[in-house]
């Protein structure tokens, strides 16, 4: 188990090192998310009555669209730069490769969210980063990263890669997006945990399903 974790860590280290040098993913995803938030800022009156009802949806639209942009880079970069066969030739279970790529994507997305969520609060006159939002962001991003990594590998093998990923991924992510929006709305409205417990449970349930299914199916997706 320690050896497998070491290999997962090696993949994360490699992706983080490459990202530190290029800033390809974090910069493009971050800038895109900020742009979406600015557009919403023009669309909605900051601090207006009822902003709490639409803000969570706007926030997750920004995060999901920006995340799709980032996910497109996860396996597409490996494919485009011709490094995927070298990675697949390593004597490690395919699940470890999946876990490594997913963990790196999760890390990049969380980094972007850590900057975007407070900015969103500033623009729309909402709390900057309510502590109760942290587990919701973590759970939703985990589900997104699990399904996104799998579909990024699927899209990497197709011709119209950039187009294929959102078409495949967004319908699958509907339960996660709905739950994240529902729970975030309750947090922004200052409701107690009991009011949005069901959303969190749905998030946890779908995270488990996405993690297990994606890790299992991954082997068949990357095999020629």
């Amino acid at each position, binding site marked *: 188990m320690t050896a497998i974790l070491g*290999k997962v860590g*090696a993949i994360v280290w490699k992706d983080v090192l490459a990202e530190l040098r290029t800033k390809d993913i974090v910069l493009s995803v971050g800038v895109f998310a900020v742009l979406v938030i600015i557009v919403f800022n023009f669309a909605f009156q900051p601090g207006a009555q009822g902003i709490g009802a639409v803000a969570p949806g706007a926030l997750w639209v920004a995060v999901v669209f920006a995340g799709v942009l980032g996910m497109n880079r996860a396996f597409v970069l490996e494919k485009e730069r011709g490094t995927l066969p070298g990675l697949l030739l*390593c004597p*490690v279970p395919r699940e470890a490769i999946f876990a490594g790529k997913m963990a790196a994507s999760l890390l990049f997305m969380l980094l972007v969210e850590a900057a975007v969520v407070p900015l969103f609060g500033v623009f729309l006159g909402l709390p900057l980063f309510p502590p109760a939002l942290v587990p919701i962001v973590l759970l939703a991003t985990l589900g997104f990263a699990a399904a996104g990594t799998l579909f990024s590998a699927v899209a990497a093998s197709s011709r119209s890669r950039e187009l294929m990923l959102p078409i495949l991924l967004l319908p699958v992510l509907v339960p996660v997006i709905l739950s994240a929006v529902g729970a975030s709305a309750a947090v922004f409205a200052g409701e107690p945990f009991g009011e949005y417990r069901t959303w969190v449970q749905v998030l946890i349930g779908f995270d488990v399903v996405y993690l297990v299914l994606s890790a299992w199916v991954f082997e068949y997706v990357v095999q*020629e």
Partner: protein
Amino acid sequence: MAHGQVTVFPQPWTVQARGLTKAYGYQWALRGIDLELRRGSSLALFGPNGSGKTTLIKVLVTLARPTGGEALIEGHDIRRDAQAVRRAVGVVGHEPWLYEDLTVQENLHFYGRMYGVSDLPRRALAVLEQVGMDPYAQFPVRSLSHGMRRRVALARAFLHRPRVLLLDEPEAGLDQEALALLERALAQARMDGMSVLIATHDLAWGLALAERAVVLHRGRIAYDSGGTRLDAAALAATYRRVTEAAP
């Protein structure tokens, strides 16, 4: 010998393939390959474009799943024991499989960690010295020429001390100096007991490096020299004859 004790003789074959087929949709890339490679020996695989050389290597190293037939690498089934097969092989493909934004050393350290290579810093330096790339260890891969990347790819293939080397046109894009280094590295690999399978278009070069020649044509073995030593002219004549023949 004590009762019940079993003496296990080492298996003489490093590669054993029987009836290996591979189809991409309706297109057959391999149509029943029977091939055996003795441990510590070398084989040059020739064939025109589309003859199935790359597909055969991909299938043998578990990068592609065979449609039919079976194959063992160092006694490990390519379907059932893929991880053991991957540990046993060192592969150089058309692409160097290196991360451009990482340095040469970082690339080798990454692959070394993935293969569980012991004493990694020293081993990485040793394989870089073997291919004459040790002065470039701290260079980002993106700053290297095509030939230099091929040499680092060879170092990557040697890194985990594989039992079998499978090289797909390793000479492509190499200058004379790099070619000489490659030949020396392969000779050393042979002396270290590795088996070598080289797919190449260069008949004379392949023949000089390997003791056996196999010609693939339209997914089938059209010629196998077996134990017969050929000169380049005889091989060229045989190659023309079998590849120009009707399927």
